[in-house]
């Protein structure tokens, strides 16, 4: 079966930008040209009319939590893959803080198996840096890589022991595996439950200072320099962190970084009235930090936008603020929130596609570009169609988002993995 994506504006940052047709056969891209003639037999070809739409390499969310195995009432690999598809993502990286932890090949393979039957986005599991995320003993990186792990992280927990982090960077280098750092100094974070500042003071909630994040990032940058290993910094939220990463990049250190839509959209004011759907770690920061995040996105200091999709059930959120679980779901709102940056002139559409697709792919060592011979992992989106977020319609099992009922513009209309359409609002 052949498929033609017809008449869309095809954007593959740095290589393609123009109205073009894309021809697919057996799940692979076979031609990209201004006008592809496919003969007159309608039957053996499916034509997707993409006129007025944007066609891009499939979006990749390199930071999600699918709670499977262990907490399937919040999200499973299957529902997560469908939520990703609906958000326009063709691939996601699942963090290892499942139960049991993804610190061994069996769990990695289980996640990949579940993803294959989900008929949704691809999953590239991130395995743990340390056994049980305890920060005491290295996992078997060779075995994990062979099982399909794409990177390593103790996300949720920082690796507090600096020597352990050094050895992890060195040992992972031998297998070509990237270390993703959840950067947090736990003693500085203390019992904090939101950003330290005027809002926390007024609300009487213990605060987490910005430096709880940036001090850990500075250490990890120093260790990346020492070991000459690449490091990726997860969920950057503070201005000090942006400065540290910008400076490290200038010095040629192999550091990349991501931020999440909530950090460039919201501030700690969203916690007002003790809204537990605005509680996450790292916490929503001040407007100064939000400004710095926007600058970091614009100047390339922050390479990627990743959601930190963190599903939680109502029983974990509808409780006292200090007892509530950290995190929000993000897969089905990420692209519209990113497109807001384009509308406001902070990022070009091309730059947004870089941060949501080709940069994550490059950081992870995946080739998802639109070129002949590559698997047809493609997202078709509208950049400006107005819509209202309805969390009740989400594919995700969980409902913990502060963006419900928001009026947004632009969204994914069709998502395709290896030529297989996993989400379609065009036809």
């Amino acid at each position, binding site marked *: 079966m052949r498929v033609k994506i017809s008449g869309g504006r095809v954007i593959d940052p740095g290589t393609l930008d123009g109205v073009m047709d894309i021809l697919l056969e057996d799940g692979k891209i076979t031609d990209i040209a201004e006008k592809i003639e496919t003969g007159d037999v309608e039957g053996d070809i499916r034509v997707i009319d993409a006129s007025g739409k944007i066609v891009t390499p499939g979006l990749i969310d390199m930071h999600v939590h699918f709670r499977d195995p262990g907490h399937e009432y919040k999200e499973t690999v299957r529902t997560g893959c469908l939520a990703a598809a609906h958000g326009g993502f063709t691939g996601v990286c699942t963090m290892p803080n499942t139960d049991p932890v993804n610190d061994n090949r069996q769990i990695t393979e289980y996640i990949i198996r579940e993803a294959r039957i989900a008929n949704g986005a691809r999953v590239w599991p991130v395995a743990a840096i340390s056994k049980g995320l305890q920060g005491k003993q290295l996992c078997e990186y060779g075995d994990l890589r062979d099982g399909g792990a794409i990177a390593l992280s103790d996300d949720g927990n920082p690796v507090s022991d600096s020597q352990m982090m050094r050895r992890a960077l060195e040992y992972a280098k031998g297998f070509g595996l990237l270390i993703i750092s959840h950067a947090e100094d736990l003693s500085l974070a203390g019992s904090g439950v939101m950003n*330290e*500042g005027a809002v926390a003071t007024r609300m009487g*909630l213990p605060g987490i200072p910005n430096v709880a994040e940036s001090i850990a990032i500075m250490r990890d940058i120093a260790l990346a320099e020492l070991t000459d290993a690449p490091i990726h910094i997860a969920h950057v939220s503070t201005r000090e962190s942006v400065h540290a990463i910008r400076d490290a990049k200038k010095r040629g250190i192999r550091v990349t970084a991501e931020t999440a839509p909530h950090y460039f959209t919201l501030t700690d004011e969203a916690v007002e009235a003790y809204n537990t759907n605005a509680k996450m770690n790292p916490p929503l920061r001040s407007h100064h930090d939000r400004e710095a995040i926007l600058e970091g996105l614009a100047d390339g200091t922050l390479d990627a936008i990743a959601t930190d999709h963190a599903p939680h059930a109502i029983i974990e959120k*509808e409780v*006292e603020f200090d007892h509530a679980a950290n995190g929000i779901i993000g897969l089905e709102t990420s692209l519209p929130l990113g497109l807001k940056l384009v509308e406001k002139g902070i990022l070009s559409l091309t730059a947004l596609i870089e941060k949501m697709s080709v940069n994550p792919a490059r950081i992870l060592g995946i080739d998802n570009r639109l070129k002949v011979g590559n698997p047809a992992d493609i997202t078709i989106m509208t950049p400006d169609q107005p819509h209202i977020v309805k969390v009740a319609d989400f594919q995700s099992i969980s409902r913990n988002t502060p963006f419900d009922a928001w009026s947004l513009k632009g969204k994914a209309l069709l998502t395709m993995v290896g030529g297989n359409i996993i989400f379609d609002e065009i036809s």
Partner: protein
Amino acid sequence: MQFAKKDILDMGSLSREEITLILDMADRMKEISERPVKKVPTLRGKTVVLLFHEPSTRTRSSFDIAAKRLSADSISISASSSSLVKGETLIDTARNLEAMHADVIVMRHSSSGAPHMLARATKAAVINAGDGTHAHPSQALLDMMTVRQNKGTLGRLRIAIIGDIAHSRVARSNIEGFSKMGSEVILAGPPTMIPKEVETLGASVTYDVDEAIHGADVVMMLRIQKERQRDFLFPSEREYAKVYGLTEKRLRKAREDVLIMHPGPVNRGVEISPAVADGPYSIILDQVTSGVAVRMALLYLVLGGAKNAGKN
């Protein structure tokens, strides 16, 4: 003026006019406690639940007495004796109390914001009797009542609040209350105990207790908790008493008619010397008396005041 609030959650959500209304009402309620028969039928048939998730003697008994003086039926639920320890959520508790037709829930909780959550989940009026390190509005109102009775005004006074501001719901509510009424609030304590950007609440900050006391009309001392040593907030009670404690000598810098206040319980010899706590400037026990009157006023007003309550 009609009182229109369903709940009393914090001082930030009360207007200047509402505060004045509450204090005026409390002044009227005070007389009831001075009668030989200390009871009026005003809230007969109303049910007041005292839901205390944190130990409290003073505040709980004060609300209990206030309810009884107005003839409301009050019942007490404490965390240790209820289903709260059996894993029931706050929302469940709220729904259950509502199903029993509670009219007012007076809540004390160790989590900041818990009464706000309760208030959203129930039609009953919620009065915050202290939540975490956030707010203690009835304490601030009774402090303001006591000051107003002694000074005749709440405007243009210099109020010094000294101690662990960061962990004090009493301090937060008093900063918001007194500054809203036009007084100047100055905070003092070790820098470790001054929360970030506290000036945004309407107070100024000094680390020098003598400077804070200088020219003060009111000096409010906060209880210091020994466990804070573990969080590296201060090294010892000995040094705290010496540098930040209120002594007779230090008090000479204040105005001659200074009022000394403390929300209790008092650590005599730590934040305040016994001679000052029990001395002529102390109005610590007046605060306790005002507490009952303010809480009677709050119960009366959230239950509809003159509008709904049976008048006698």
